[in-house]
């Protein structure tokens, strides 16, 4: 089966590359080994939140200039970042994902534990703050769904109070959400969202919120338990609640991240892209420095052939990288990986310390050609979390790297 480009990995970076290429009419296939790590995303994308030494970043594009050369942004070239960031924002708007945020200065998202963390773009219906320590409101009504444990409402309330707000917490015991409590395990954000699709369900929730909202409350914050596939339910709810209403992300699987994924995938498929969900690329066939085809677990003898291949399989948790007792490796093509052979150097004691394995990744040249046996492959690129050179958890740059490297590579492929 022939394609212009085959993308290995269907998460944020794979989809951004796929959409960018498919928009130019290219025939693109994405092979995705299950659902992506966007399901752990709370509705914000981040460009750069901190430097490698931990210094907080306010102006990510300016701060990017001081990043070490192994950082993917340095590879892209700092001068290209503003344009790519603008393209990324535009792409999200085009697919139907309106975002808040200004690339020149970070805003702050509110986490499921009530912490303000730097962000670049945040979904329209979620909390954004201008500063990490001050809230734009004095009186906050924080609601939770009774019995919903994936939103530590007291932690969020505490965090908001630390920022100086007066917080009232109310638990809503409202159908059809209350009925979900009958399950000991499945009262999860996504399942609540599936109960909050119809107009009547949303209206019930809206009246329950309005009932507890007091005159003093300036804003209502609630866990992100609606809007799994689109923003219809959220829009309906916001229209019916008497106060300004914003979502706060929950513990995963997170509704906003799942929505972002679904939205991008739908758009990609609408453009005619082929998205092979639940299949895994197992190996490739090479001719010299060119990859000529990849084999998947399910298509078996049907080889996926393409002019270009983009490796977007993510880091360890997504199995884009693997580690065993002996080594760190890239499991599909056995690409070169930057990681010490001594296992003791992969990790450090202290769970909150910077962990070396977080920065491991596939070796690439400055055009993001993946290296194999020390040589760059002509038509294989690596983008997103499979790249090393930075710690996305500590630096707050994972989604930014995913989008910008994907865009950079997709544009390079188009220009070729």
């Amino acid at each position: 089966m022939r394609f212009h480009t085959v993308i290995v990995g269907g998460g944020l970076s794979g989809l951004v590359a796929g959409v960018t290429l498919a928009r130019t009419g290219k025939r693109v296939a994405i092979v995705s080994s299950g659902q992506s790590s966007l399901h752990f995303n709370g509705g914000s994308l981040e460009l750069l939140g901190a430097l490698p030494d931990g210094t907080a970043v306010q102006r990510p594009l300016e701060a990017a200039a001081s990043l070490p050369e192994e950082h993917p942004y340095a590879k892209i070239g700092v001068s290209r970042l503003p344009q790519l960031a603008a393209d990324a924002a535009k792409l999200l708007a085009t697919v139907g994902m309106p975002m808040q945020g200004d690339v020149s200065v970070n805003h702050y998202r509110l986490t499921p534990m009530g912490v303000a963390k730097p962000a670049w773009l945040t979904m329209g219906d979620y909390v954004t703050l201008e500063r990490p320590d001050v809230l734009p409101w004095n009186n906050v009504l924080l609601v939770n769904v009774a019995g919903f444990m994936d939103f530590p409402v007291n932690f969020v309330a505490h965090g908001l109070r630390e920022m100086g707000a007066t917080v009232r917490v109310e638990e809503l015991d409202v159908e059809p959400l209350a009925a979900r409590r009958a399950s000991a395990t499945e009262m999860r954000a996504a399942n609540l969202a599936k109960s909050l699709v119809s107009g009547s369900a949303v209206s019930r929730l809206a009246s329950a919120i309005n009932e507890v909202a007091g005159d003093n409350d300036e804003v209502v914050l609630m866990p992100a338990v609606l809007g799994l596939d689109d923003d219809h339910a959220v829009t309906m709810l916001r229209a019916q609640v008497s106060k300004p209403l914003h979502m706060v992300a929950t513990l995963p699987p997170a509704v906003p991240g799942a929505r972002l994924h679904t939205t991008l995938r739908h758009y990609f498929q609408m453009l005619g892209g082929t998205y092979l969900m639940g299949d895994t690329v197992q190996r490739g066939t090479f001719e010299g420095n060119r990859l000529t085809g990849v084999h998947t677990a399910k298509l078996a003898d049907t080889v996926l052939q393409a002019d270009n291949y983009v490796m977007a399989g993510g880091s360890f948790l997504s199995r884009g990288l693997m580690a065993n007792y002996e080594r760190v490796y890239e499991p599909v093509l056995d690409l070169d990986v930057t990681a010490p052979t001594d296992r003791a150097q992969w990790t450090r004691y202290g769970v909150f310390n910077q962990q070396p394995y977080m920065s491991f990744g596939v070796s690439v040249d400055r055009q993001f050609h993946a290296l194999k046996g020390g040589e760059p492959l002509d038509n294989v690129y690596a983008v997103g979390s499979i790249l090393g050179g930075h710690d996305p958890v500590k630096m707050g740059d994972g989604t930014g790297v995913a989008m910008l490297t994907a865009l950079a590579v997709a544009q390079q492929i188009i220009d070729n």
Partner: protein
Amino acid sequence: MAERTQLTSISEDNFEQCLKCSICTVYCPVSAVTTAYPGPKQAGPDGERYRLKDPHYYDEALKLCLNCKRCEVACPSGVRVGDIIQKARMKHQGHGPKLRDMMLASTDLVGSMATLVAPIANFTVGLKPVKAVMHSVLGIDKHRTFPAYASTKFETWFRRHAQQEQGRFMRHVSYFHGCYVNYNYPQLGKDLVAVMNALGYGVHLLDKEKCCGVALIANGMYGQARRQAQTNIESMSTSVTRDRRPVITTSSTCTFTMRDEYEHVLGLDTAGVRDSLSLATRYIFNLIDEGKVRLAFRSDYKRHMAYHTACHMQRMGWAIYSIELLRLIPGLQLDVLESQCCGIAGTYGFKRENYETSQAIGSGLFAAVEQADPEVVVTDCETCKWQIEMSTGKRVMNPISVLAEALDLEATAALNK
């Protein structure tokens, strides 16, 4: 030692790969609509650790699993969540199947008997009093209409009208037609023969074909399922090795059952036949892709259709073949619907206790069908066909029937002489 230390984790159904990320729970159609089911993570890998400790931790609610395998498709870690659940049911389920379940599961036996008296059977099961008895006594939901039984079985038709001429072709395949084609809808089998003949392939029946057993597995009749599976594996093996004929099918569920469930759930060795067993759309697509056959379409063909990816089709990852094949038809406007479960899951939706759950699960798909408003819904699964026809009133066709309709069979035959 056979394995080097800690190079990889090997466990049955990859159950140890589970990171407890819970993504599978987002894509379970059952727990989306009922709280009685503990969800794929709890029923699967979580429960399995406890069942390994002591079978007494088995939870009867596992019977609510549809076996749609959407948890497996969603799993980023390759865990065969659905297989874990099916195997747990097989190992630990407390009681034997009910009469109703045995009836629903014995597609071969009931089909053979019904075909003999098709008009009466069709008439009888459609009668209100009969439906009421089936509903209350047997627990087969009254809303359900049994698919009509054909008066002539496909096999009978084939032997009388088609078998003789198959020898004249240069290349050959065997056809596993399945119960549905044989008893309820021989036309699909006839379409398959027509299309394959036009492509220059002779079509043959297997020496002996038994129901694939999907309904037996679903209803806990594992011994019977295993016996039938063994017969099928032997027949297919004979076809592949003795006759050098690959085996093709027109049912995604039969294909999935024989390729994957035989090995993963029933523990049978399918190595000799698995790679040679394919859905007809995949087989034909690959022939085209490799330049071995060419198609000529009717110039007057103009239809608007919507393709529904059945659960097992999604699990096999083969929807791409049917879709790509349909996209070759010049006059066909094809909408590809978001893959979601229709709720019938074989015999599941026929059971009175599951009717509401079944329809609630399918509601998303029905809405999508209504929105797309095609003339025809296309799918590779026969039970999805019943469910979609009953629930949306749309006509539902198998891609092979669409192909048979859209091809200029004579011109195609001429191209592939």
